[in-house]
């Protein structure tokens, strides 16, 4: 079943680089990361690449494969024709460190700007109670493996370095939505999401949702509801009417704005 796969892998660093041609033996059931590892072990010992779990669980091995943002460990070679050349390049929205490794610190900065969870005291017996249906909304968002592929893909920052300071990106809109929908949180972060995090700059193109390896419905389930909640806060007459006739969600009642 084995064959020789032709690959082009971007090699270089901050000062520039180029696609290098490689040919490597691959076998049935293998993924792009296997091929990269074999190149590393046999032809280019210093080829830089991030990975940990090799099972789509840690979100380390993000790259662009034939131009599409994907996890290398979850991209099977059987998706390609054996005669096809597979091209692997680093994520484009982040500065290259070396080869396929990029500087993703943008995401860690954005994470640190986000006010954390603030629960009320526990129940009298020292436990907390939440209904399964209520935690499920947040659980969908907490599936995020922080691969940052959505951050890499979103056109607001892709090729628009100037937007980065004011835009947290889809991964962190998820986090805002998660906390907003948390049954116990006491903070109201809607203003912050809209302002400092740049939710308003998102024009719901759904490109982030398309690349999410966890299949999180980032746009439909997090961003759009979050936008609606922000509007709600501004006393949009329609939403106000909705609230009068009982359509409005009550997640933000009794919260303190941060």
């Amino acid at each position, binding site marked *: 079943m084995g064959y020789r796969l032709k690959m082009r892998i971007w090699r270089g*660093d901050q000062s520039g680089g180029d696609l290098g041609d490689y040919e490597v033996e691959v*076998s*049935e*059931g*293998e*993924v792009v990361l*296997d091929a990269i590892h074999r190149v*590393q*072990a*046999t032809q280019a*010992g*210093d*080829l*830089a*690449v*991030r*990975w*940990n*779990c*090799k*099972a*789509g*669980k*840690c*979100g*380390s091995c993000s790259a662009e494969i034939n131009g599409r943002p994907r996890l290398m460990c*979850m991209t*099977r070679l059987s998706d390609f024709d054996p005669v096809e050349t597979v091209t692997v390049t680093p994520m484009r929205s982040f500065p290259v*460190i*070396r*080869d396929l*490794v990029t*500087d*993703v*610190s943008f995401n*860690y*900065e954005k*994470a*640190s700007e986000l006010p*954390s*969870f603030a*629960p009320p005291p*526990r129940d009298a017996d*020292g*436990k*907390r*109670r*939440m*209904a*399964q249906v209520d*935690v499920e909304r*947040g*659980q969908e968002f*907490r*599936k*995020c*493996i*922080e691969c940052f592929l959505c951050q890499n893909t979103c056109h607001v920052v892709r090729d628009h370095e100037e937007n980065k300071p004011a835009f947290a990106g889809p991964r962190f809109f998820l986090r805002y939505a998660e*906390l907003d929908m*948390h049954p116990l949180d006491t903070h109201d972060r809607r203003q912050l999401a809209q302002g400092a995090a740049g939710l308003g700059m998102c024009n719901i193109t759904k490109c982030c949702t398309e690349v999410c390896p966890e299949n999180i419905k980032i746009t439909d389930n997090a961003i759009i509801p979050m936008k609606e909640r922000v509007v709600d806060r501004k006393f949009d007459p329609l939403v106000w009417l909705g609230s009068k006739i009982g359509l409005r969600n009550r997640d933000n009642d009794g919260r303190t704005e941060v």
Partner: protein
Amino acid sequence: MSDRHPMTGNEMSGSEPGGLERHQYDVVVVGAGGAGLRAAIAAHDAGARTAIVCKSLLGKAHTVMAEGGIAAAMGNRWPEDNWEVHFRDTMRGGKMLNNWRMAQLHAQEAPERVMELEDWGALFDRTEDGLISQRDFGGHKYARLAHVGDRTGLEMIRTLQQRAVALGIDVFMECTVTELLKDGSGSIAGAFAYWRETGRFVVFEAPSVVLATGGIGKSFKVTSNSWEYTGDGHALALRAGASLINMEFVQFHPTGMVWPPSVKGLLVTESVRGDGGILKNSDGKRFMFDYIPEFFKAETADTIEEADRWYDDKKNNRRPPELLPRDEVARAINSEIKAGRGSPHGGIFLDIASRRTPDYIRKRLPSMYHQFKELADVDITQEPMEIGPTCHYVMGGIEVDPDTELAAVPGLYAVGECSGGMHGSNRLGGNSLSDLLVFGRRAGEAAAARADSMGQSRPTVRDDDVRAAQASALAPFDVEGDENPYAIQHDLQQSMNDLVGIIRTRGELEQSLQEIEKLKERAKRMTVEGHRQYNPGWHLAIDLRNMLLVSECIAKAALAREESRGGHTRDDFPQTDHEVWGTKNLVCNVDATGAGIDLSEKPLPVMPDELKKYFD
């Protein structure tokens, strides 16, 4: 100088004079898995200036891969459950070789540690009453594992990571520690590391260092572990003068993927069995009933009918044999395969498709569903999985004081998978994540207290040691050799798998020690290409030294222990010998040359009578 990154602390420019940065902290935690993060949070909360140093990006440590759950006797499903039952299960699972005090503290403190995660934002699955749900796992008498589907580790690491970030703890990510530094009196003075990104060196000066570096699985060919599991903490501690215990006990998880080859070893969570999955051989026989050991007979169902009733009525039925502790199940699977009753790709069958509805399976086991679908073209709601044993966890590790996690070197602490004693000869599923939390917190507090008690008179790092650490890290660039680190790693993995695997014999263990000596010689001639900037070949060359040292510990201890117990099975000594081996640990230290291992014996701490009563 430079735009040091505000969050990562990373050095983006190379213009630092001499290429050496120095940082002063009260507590330096090496590792950002569950154990390291929990320790750092505790140290910070106790008022210590704390840093976390880790090899990968924050949030990518091995803990992220844990699937099944966190064991804690919260009693949310079974009010009968309490720390005493959990303690008993843990000791029996470890075949009584556990450090009793650690097992006791663990069982007592785990529930509060889990609820703390909830205070920090974790969203666990719920019971009908809205409490944290608890699921069944092998070796646990009651449903006890707090979980989030089958991605509990992700929930845990994200919660702790977000907490650490919110507290503003400094994180040095993609920064690898290669040596511990001591002062003239032998106390910890700091740690020496390099940035993966730039290849530049860093010296951390701190009177307390907490090792939380995880396991050693990368020394085996078939493993569920990632590249990080090269036994760094084990080896750092050894070289600093601490000792390792229980190194012969390596857990082979019964259910790893066997096909396709590229994913061989990848874990299939025990929750599949906890949620109703059963094991079958090629004759379609549910074979685990043939492998119930005497030790667990009283609590294990001996008919299919009873086993199947247990899922709904736990009071009146005993547990299915599929949920025996891992060592038992792994050995049974191994025997079936050896007897020629295996599946087409050399495993056996794990079947949940014929026992639960597709909806239930997708809901309870979403990442298993995803993993098989995407990587093996198998729909687990329709057909059985093929699985076989995979190297998963090391019970052995750094010997520590049970209450403070202090190792034999003053100022050195160890927690999580790199520490030893807690799990005895075999770890129960779910007991690792709780171990990380319980002892992480204890170590962080003890490390902070030590730093605090020292005031200004702190141990100082010696320049000679820094120069030596630097020279040793750079050696692979200077050697004019002919050996490739990837080839040496490959040969080590193959030989550990073949000779020190799930079933062991004297002849093979002796041979493995000879192989390790040869590999050590080859490692001296190992050379790397390229330069210091993000160079995986160089990183591996540094890690290999640790892998070789730790592999030697495993093989030597396995050769010495002439009995079978938990994660150590000797074909030539199949019995568990309580008289001779039930009362002592094997201890590894570096020998006088610094490059080899000396083995000694040490009596096991004796359990007080008030705890002994649980085992009558």
